[in-house]
């Protein structure tokens, strides 16, 4: 079989990553925190874990997942702050504006990282190198976002290699991976330093005799496709390791709400109330994006371990950094697609009825999937109950848009002790615009 060569094209994709994004934004906002170990969490309570740590904190061994108690033992002067979504959203928007001033195909990949695609733009760059532009982007982030903000810039032949490059020389580096230094770069890396290769995948690769990134590059395509990944993903890895583009942008595939309980509870009534709150949020997001959902999934994690005889699916949490919580999940695909909070709630209750009883709930995740565009309702001679309820929910959303979130809320929610504030939309920016 003919081996595919490394992509000979010059690197034209730039990946920009804001370092320790939320912690650095807090240090930008509060100059008294600069140079100090700082962490950001969603809610400060006994179970709070660090969601992002400043470089000073990382040097002391405080990382993503470190509990507040442990962090204070490691660094008595450690400062934990609650996340402030509008602040991060502003930084995100400023960065997006900078990136889009360079290329029409610039976009944010997540809340703290963006891509500028310079493919086919060499003529417009007037002889400037991408490294030169990379240094300019760094300076503009300092000038236009904040003088304490540093970004890592990576330039590569595809988006994945650009991300690999952005991982070097943190916290203020710039690195280029091209056809000339691709193999040399793999040569000094470990497998788990490659994006998306974690321990589980490392073990699978080791089973196929692949222990280093260089061996990963040299592995024949059929080994990756038939032995390691057993899917089209093997073919994608074969291409992306050689610098060919494989990433495809999908639209919104799921809409959900993730919630860590401030007051842990095993009371079914309180959990039902929380479910309603979460459904209301999901319904609002579905409506905003003009979508309806057929599938619904509930995912709970408990303080205690459920009995194996209980119905549903169990998944022990991996590692110890999230504590020793046990999870339960259940999902169902329904015949009809819905988007109203009450409709989602009845479905969520149906799934909730199958969950193990008497366990203390720590986190709750509700995800709607199998999304479809919402169709315009056919005009009826007489309004149906469904249409009426749909209009009520739409009107409530308009009031909340104008006067602020939860200005109008169903009675069921008012009883809950657990607030459900908007926190950081991790990994996704699809609800921003």
């Amino acid at each position, binding site marked *: 079989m003919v081996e595919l060569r490394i992509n000979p094209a010059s690197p034209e994709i730039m990946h920009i990553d804001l370092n320790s994004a939320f912690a650095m934004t807090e240090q930008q*906002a*509060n*100059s*008294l925190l600069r140079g100090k170990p700082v962490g950001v969490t969603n809610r400060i309570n006994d179970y709070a874990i660090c969601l992002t740590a400043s470089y000073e904190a990382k040097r002391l061994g405080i990382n993503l997942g470190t509990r507040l108690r442990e962090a204070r033992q490691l660094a008595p002067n450690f400062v934990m702050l609650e996340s402030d979504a509008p*602040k991060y959203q502003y930084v995100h928007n400023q960065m997006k504006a900078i990136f889009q001033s360079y290329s029409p195909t610039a976009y944010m990949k997540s809340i703290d990282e963006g891509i500028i695609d310079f493919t086919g733009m060499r003529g417009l760059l007037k002889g400037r190198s991408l490294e030169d532009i990379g240094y300019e982007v760094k300076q503009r982030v300092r000038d236009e976002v*904040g003088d304490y903000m540093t970004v890592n810039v990576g330039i590569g032949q595809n988006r994945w290699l650009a991300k690999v490059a952005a991982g070097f020389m943190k916290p203020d580096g710039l690195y280029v991976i091209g056809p000339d230094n691709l193999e040399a770069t793999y040569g000094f890396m470990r497998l788990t330093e490659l994006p998306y290769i974690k321990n589980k995948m490392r073990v699978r690769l080791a089973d196929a005799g692949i222990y280093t990134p260089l061996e990963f590059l040299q592995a024949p395509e059929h080994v990756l496709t038939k032995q390691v990944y057993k899917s089209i993903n093997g073919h994608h890895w074969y291409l992306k390791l050689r610098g060919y583009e494989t990433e495809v942008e999908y639209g919104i595939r799921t809409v959900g709400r993730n919630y860590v309980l401030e007051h842990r509870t095993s009371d079914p009534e309180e959990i039902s109330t929380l479910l309603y709150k979460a459904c209301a949020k999901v319904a609002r997001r579905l409506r905003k994006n003009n979508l309806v959902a057929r599938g619904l999934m509930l995912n709970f994690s408990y303080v205690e371990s459920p009995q194996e005889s209980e119905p549903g699916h169990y998944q022990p949490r991996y590692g110890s950094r999230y504590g020793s919580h046990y999870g339960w999940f259940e999902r169902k695909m329904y015949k009809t697609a819905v988007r109203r909070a009450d409709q989602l709630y009845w479905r969520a209750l149906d799934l909730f009825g199958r969950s193990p009883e008497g366990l203390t709930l720590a986190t709750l995740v509700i995800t709607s999937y199998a999304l479809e565009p919402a169709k315009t309702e056919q005009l009826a001679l007489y309004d149906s109950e469904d249409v009426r309820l749909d209009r009520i929910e739409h009107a409530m959303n308009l009031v909340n848009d104008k006067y*602020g979130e939860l*200005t109008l809320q169903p009675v069921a929610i008012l009883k809950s002790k657990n607030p459900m504030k908007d926190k950081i939309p991790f990994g996704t920016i699809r609800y921003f615009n």
Partner: protein
Amino acid sequence: MSEEFNEKVNVVASFVMTPQRTVRITPHAMGWRGKRYKLATMGLYHPARRGVKRVHIFEFTCDDTKFRVELDPDSLEWTLKEVFYG
């Protein structure tokens, strides 16, 4: 370490039109509870939504204290929201 407030304050600020036709607002000093605080380091400005209204939030430090103040663009009133003691 930090304390929340909701008190009206007096702020001396400059409003400068930028070449992009936006207004850059920079606070310089703040009067609160009979004391004048001169802004030492401007941390971060960011907007936030209160329903349909867009308010402007400024975070700045003065000696060992960080202030978070909010400007209501309709009434041009400044409100002290948080004080962080360093």
